[in-house]
């Protein structure tokens, strides 16, 4: 089925009446490790003199929403857990260890310890398979959780007192045409929503994505020298603003129309599927997206954005 038709089918199909569980909120939660590095939490072994405050303040507002929503679980879809064979759901009750960022190891050496909602993982696998997707449980307790997952989760809830469910990013958007890759994410979102309903939990979703992704290849010394931090290009900034406006206004048709070109021209990380997964799971709600803040990290564009589904229609 063509991408456009799949998209509209998901728009209408997902207005169904929920059972006991529900998605109470959703976030675009970008994962530059610089934000954790700038914050200096005890879990990170590296110390900084701060930096990237505007984005970190944005996350403070997101954290306040999470505290208010009191979700039972936070699901995160991370492009840095890329899988080749299907969509994987973490299914180990507790995962702990050290995660060193392979790209910025000098900024991120984080001791993680997370509780996973494994029952929800099982249901997600079941529902994804019902959608015709290849889906798997990740049951290896020695698995090293990727930095994208950890950074987004830390920035949303540094207390780590809410169970989580890390979801892999299947590489189909990169291996195949947009229509196939993003189409898979729409199905994955629908499956995730049904699993949450069946599980009977209050869930928050996090799409761990940067927006425009072209960046500088030279790092300042120190990395937190904010006099060097700015967007990589004006064209990239304009694209980000255009996309953010569509997200704010819940203009899903316009978004779907321009997304392929946006992804191509700005290398946008949303290509990895987290955004489509999240919007599809929410049923493309006519709810205004709230921008908590926008900022750049080595030239990439990042927005922290929230959809509070408990506050109702915009």
């Amino acid at each position, binding site marked *: 089925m063509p991408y456009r038709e799949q998209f509209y089918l998901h728009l209408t199909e997902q207005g169904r009446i929920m059972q006991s569980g529900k998605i109470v909120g959703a976030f675009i939660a970008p994962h530059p490790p610089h934000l954790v590095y700038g914050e200096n939490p005890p879990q990170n072994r590296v110390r900084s003199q701060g930096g990237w405050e505007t984005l970190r303040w944005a996350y403070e507002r997101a954290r306040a929403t999470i505290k208010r929503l009191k979700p039972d679980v936070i699901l995160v879809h991370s492009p840095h857990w890329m899988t*080749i*064979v299907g969509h994987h759901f973490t299914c180990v009750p507790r995962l702990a260890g050290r995660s060193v960022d392979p790209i910025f190891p000098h900024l991120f050496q984080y001791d993680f310890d997370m509780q996973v909602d494994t029952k929800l993982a099982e249901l997600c696998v079941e529902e994804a398979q019902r959608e015709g997707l290849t889906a798997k449980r990740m049951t*290896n307790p020695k698995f090293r959780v990727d930095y994208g997952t950890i950074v987004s989760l830390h920035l949303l809830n540094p207390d780590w007192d809410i169970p989580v469910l890390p979801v892999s990013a299947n590489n189909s958007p990169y291996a195949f045409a947009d229509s196939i890759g993003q189409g898979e994410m729409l199905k994955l979102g629908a499956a995730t929503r049904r699993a949450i309903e069946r599980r009977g939990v209050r869930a928050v979703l996090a799409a761990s994505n940067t927006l425009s992704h072209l960046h500088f290849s030279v790092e300042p010394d120190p990395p937190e020298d904010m006099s060097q931090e700015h967007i990589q290009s004006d064209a990239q900034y304009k694209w980000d603003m255009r996309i953010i406006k569509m997200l704010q206004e819940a203009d899903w048709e316009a978004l779907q129309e321009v997304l392929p070109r946006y992804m191509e021209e700005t290398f946008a990380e949303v290509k990895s599927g987290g955004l489509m997964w999240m919007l599809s799971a929410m049923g493309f709600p006519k709810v205004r997206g709230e921008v908590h803040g926008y900022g750049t990290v080595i030239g990439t564009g990042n927005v922290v954005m929230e959809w509070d589904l408990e506050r109702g229609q915009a």
Partner: protein
Amino acid sequence: MGSGKGAGVSEFFAGWLPGLPQLLQGDKSEAWKRIAGGMETLGTHLKEFRPDVLVLYSSQWLSVLGTSFQVQQRPKGVHVDENWHEWGDLEFDFPVDAELGKFFASALKVNGLPSKTVDFEGFPIDTGTIVANRFLNPEGKIPLSIVSSWVYADAEKSRQIGRLVREECSRRGVRAAYVACSLLSAHYTPKEIKPAEDCVSASDDEWNQKFLNTLESGDLSSFNVGEYAKAVGADMQLNAFHWLSGVLEERETRAQIHAYGPIWGAGAAVLEFRGEGVGC
């Protein structure tokens, strides 16, 4: 750095192999077993070469801010593959020639190429490096120097990096074995398969065979590597091959093919490169 005991020796050793967890699961597929067998042969020949250091380029170690060189003295730990995590833990423990890695990084910088050294406890060693090392250095006695795959390097830059690495070894009298860990065609089968039925698509297979025949003949002049890489969705645009070409530059080389076959739909080959006049 290596002891330099091989200074002045003109022989060389270069190889190419894949690095996926399937290769440690030979009982599941005849094809995987065959490829693993080829890797064992490459490992035996490498041992006979008695290198000071194994310089290993891994297409699965991606770097963004230029080329990275591993300089942690002895990486040790357990890695779980992000896709094939159900096949157990990949334990690793091997020595690294840290000083040589630092020299490589400096050589690149001097020549205007961005580079970094990596020395962090818990740094994620990639599946490719671990699997390759199991076959090439099973006793863990040969120090490694691991080279990352810089995502913004094109063919020319990759060749330049290979050339600079080889020149640095020559200058310092280091007897190095150079190996690239990479797939050829990288169109994976995106679903569960029966390992025994694993195969490369007909068109990728045809291209791979053509490429291998060309390497075997030693004459690449009429083969369009760029076109091949694009047609088969080559692993990291075949940058590992360009790196190896930089290493082998100015040498008359022919590939000896130890094995070729599928790994989850991708095309994998085990190759050994010998110079003219250098016996087996």
